[in-house]
């Protein structure tokens, strides 16, 4: 594997950091200019990230060392296939989200918009840093930055509930942070390095007990953001945040950062071999299966649309982790693909929820009767997203779920196949009623039946992402070569 | 160094120290402290530390008592313990 030293990863991280500074300096006085910075940064970030794709597909690795902290411990950015997958996902969706945010924030005439865009840009920087982190410490550094940057976003509304949600979010994630810190410190002392290595670097360095402890600590640490079941509580609460935040951060950046961390731990720190030998994978798999089913059940019970989406997110995140935990090639491939695909689909759903809220101030599923006639584009996109998440072909959700099911067969654990299937069934059970209500049910009270969409700033992004999830379903390798990247990553892990 | 003399002075020193912290009048306390310092001077002279004794005589028994009394004039003589 060829390693090229390149400044591109750093640029990708810095671009939104610089944008954040510009946003603060511009401030409330010139709002258009401020929004221009956001859009410029998102586009240029995407271009930078996209420019790295060819290198990766050629099997090279890009690397940039920021500074050396200690022997064997660098603050280092390294772009490999898996990291790039996440980076591409986040940077692509940021463009959509920034457009959408502008529409949303202006539509509601929100307060403290400068702070909002500032924190958003910082959060994106951190996400990019997480994606490109070359070792556990770098990952942790950006992980904590992400935590702090998203806290004001969660508490953005500044109502007592929002502040409480912010507190809860902080309590969960900071606690997770220190657990990760302890675990990575121990790992560093055991191995003398923290650099991610496809296939893991921990093998042969620790006793079985220590391995178990480290595994639990790291999974819990990253699992908080990935909302694994007993420690998921913050995510539904955090849905109080403005919708773009829920969309990008709680469907893509934050929770995916958690999942990304878990996958890094499973595949690049411990490695499939070690996990398989120690049998830890099975425990994790069962645990996650519980989350899958449990979250889906809970989603059924939610009336608030965003809360329902949140539980669906928890469900899907667990599916991704389960894919990785099964350790078979197809399962890993499916998990990684699902990470990307789920991002596109879930962001569509959140965008829709936001658009509905901006237009009608409705938040609950039971109020959506007949909305399809008022907002056909929006609700149509919702239907696409919902079908995708459920896993109906030809949407992209199908591909990833197919690989996941295949993977569970490869792993010779039929029980997880049933988990996947049950989950898909439950997905259908909690999504289709919404679609049905919107399109086929007559509203109880008088609703404006005419065509009345939210602003174009909102509709275009949500339709784009809906279309994208369709395109990705048909051509999994379209545009940004997701499929190829994933295949490469799996090859590296299992071959390495 | 005559230890009998020494021990007598030491005992007086201890007594004046205890008196200085127990007496209920700050002015008396100042004077007792002066006595304490002065007895210390004797002790040190007798141990051969003439310079220290000289300094203590000038400072402990002289200047700092003056400070002390000045401060008492500025504040109060009263004390509860």
């Amino acid at each position, binding site marked *: 594997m060829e390693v090229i030293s390149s400044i591109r990863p750093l640029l990708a991280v810095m671009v939104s950091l610089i944008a954040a500074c510009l946003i603060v300096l511009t401030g409330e006085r010139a709002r258009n200019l401020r929004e221009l910075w956001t859009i410029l940064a998102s586009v240029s970030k995407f271009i930078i990230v996209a420019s790295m794709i060819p290198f990766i597909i050629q099997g090279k690795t890009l690397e940039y060392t920021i500074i050396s902290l200690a022997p064997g411990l660098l603050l280092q950015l390294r772009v490999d296939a898996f990291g790039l997958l996440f980076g591409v996902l986040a940077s692509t969706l940021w463009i959509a989200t920034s457009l959408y945010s502008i529409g949303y924030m202006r539509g509601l005439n929100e307060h403290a918009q400068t702070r909002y865009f500032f924190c958003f840009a910082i959060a994106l920087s951190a996400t990019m840093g997480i994606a490109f982190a070359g070792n556990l410490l770098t990952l942790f550094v950006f992980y904590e930055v992400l935590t702090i940057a998203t806290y004001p976003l969660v508490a953005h509304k500044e109502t007592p509930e929002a502040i409480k949600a912010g507190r809860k979010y902080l309590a969960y994630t900071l606690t997770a942070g220190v657990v990760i810190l302890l675990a990575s410190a121990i790992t560093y002392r055991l191995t003398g390095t923290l650099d991610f290595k496809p296939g893991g670097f921990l093998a042969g360095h620790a006793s079985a007990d220590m391995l178990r402890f480290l595994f639990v600590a790291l999974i819990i640490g990253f699992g908080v953001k990935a909302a694994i079941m007993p420690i998921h509580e913050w995510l539904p609460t955090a849905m109080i945040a403005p919708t773009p935040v829920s969309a990008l951060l709680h469907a893509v950046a934050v929770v995916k950062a958690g999942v990304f961390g878990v996958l890094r731990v499973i595949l690049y720190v411990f490695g499939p071999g070690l996990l398989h030998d120690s049998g830890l994978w099975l425990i994790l798999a069962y645990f996650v299966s519980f989350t899958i089913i449990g979250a889906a059940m809970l989603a059924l019970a939610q009336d608030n649309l965003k809360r329902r989406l949140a539980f669906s997110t928890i469900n899907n995140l667990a599916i991704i982790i389960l894919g990785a935990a099964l350790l078979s090639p197809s399962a890993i491939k499916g998990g990684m693909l699902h990470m990307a695909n789920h991002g596109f689909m879930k962001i569509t759903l959140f965008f829709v929820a936001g658009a509905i809220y901006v237009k009608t101030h409705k938040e609950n599923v039971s109020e959506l009767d007949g909305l399809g006639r008022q907002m056909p584009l929006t609700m149509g996109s919702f239907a696409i997203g919902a079908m995708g998440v459920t896993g109906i072909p030809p949407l992209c959700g199908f591909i990833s779920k197919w690989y996941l099911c295949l993977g569970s067969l490869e792993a010779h654990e039929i029980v997880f196949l049933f988990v996947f299937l049950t989950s898909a069934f439950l997905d259908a059970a909690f999504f289709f009623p919404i679609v049905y209500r919107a399109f086929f049910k007559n509203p109880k009270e008088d609703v404006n039946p005419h065509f009345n969409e939210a602003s174009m700033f909102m509709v275009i992004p949500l339709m784009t992402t809906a279309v994208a999830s369709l395109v990705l379903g048909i051509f999994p390798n379209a545009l940004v070569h997701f499929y190829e990247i994933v295949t490469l990553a799996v090859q590296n892990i299992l071959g390495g | 160094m005559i230890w009998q003399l020494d021990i007598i002075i030491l005992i007086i020193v201890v007594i004046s120290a205890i008196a200085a912290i127990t007496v209920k009048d700050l002015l008396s306390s100042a004077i007792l402290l002066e006595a304490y310092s002065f007895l210390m001077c004797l002790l040190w002279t007798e141990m051969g530390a003439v310079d220290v004794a000289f300094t203590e005589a000038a*400072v402990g028994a*002289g*200047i700092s008592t003056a400070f002390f009394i000045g401060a008492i004039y500025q504040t109060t003589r009263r004390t509860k313990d």
Partner: protein
Amino acid sequence: MTIEFKDVIIQTICRLLTPPIQLYALYVIAHGHYSPGGGFQGGCILGASFILMVIAYDIGEVKRRMAEKMNTIFCSLGVIIYSGIGAICLILGANYLDYGILHKILPVNPVRARALGTLGIEIGVGIAVMAVMISIFLNIASGGEHEGALE
């Protein structure tokens, strides 16, 4: 606080005593090489002579003889003499406070130069201690007002 009470006897004795006390203080400073004493003790006694004056007369009397500004200047002057002698050693090329090097500017051998350097700093200490003692006493005894007397 104004003075109500003036004792002629005390004042006269104080007036008579002050010059010998000051002379003795100077002796203590200067003779510190050969007998107990030195800058600090001498400075204290010098200061005490002024304190005696405060007790016998009032603060105004002392301030007439030693203005407050003058006193403050003396405070720092004394220490400047000390550290200045050290700095001169530094400038002459030796380590700080290495008086031996002073023989370059004094017509004596290095060992004698050390004794002279010692004398110099004793004088500095004496001045500083005297001024500081007066200053502390005046401040404490008058509560910072610098007027009136002890009754």
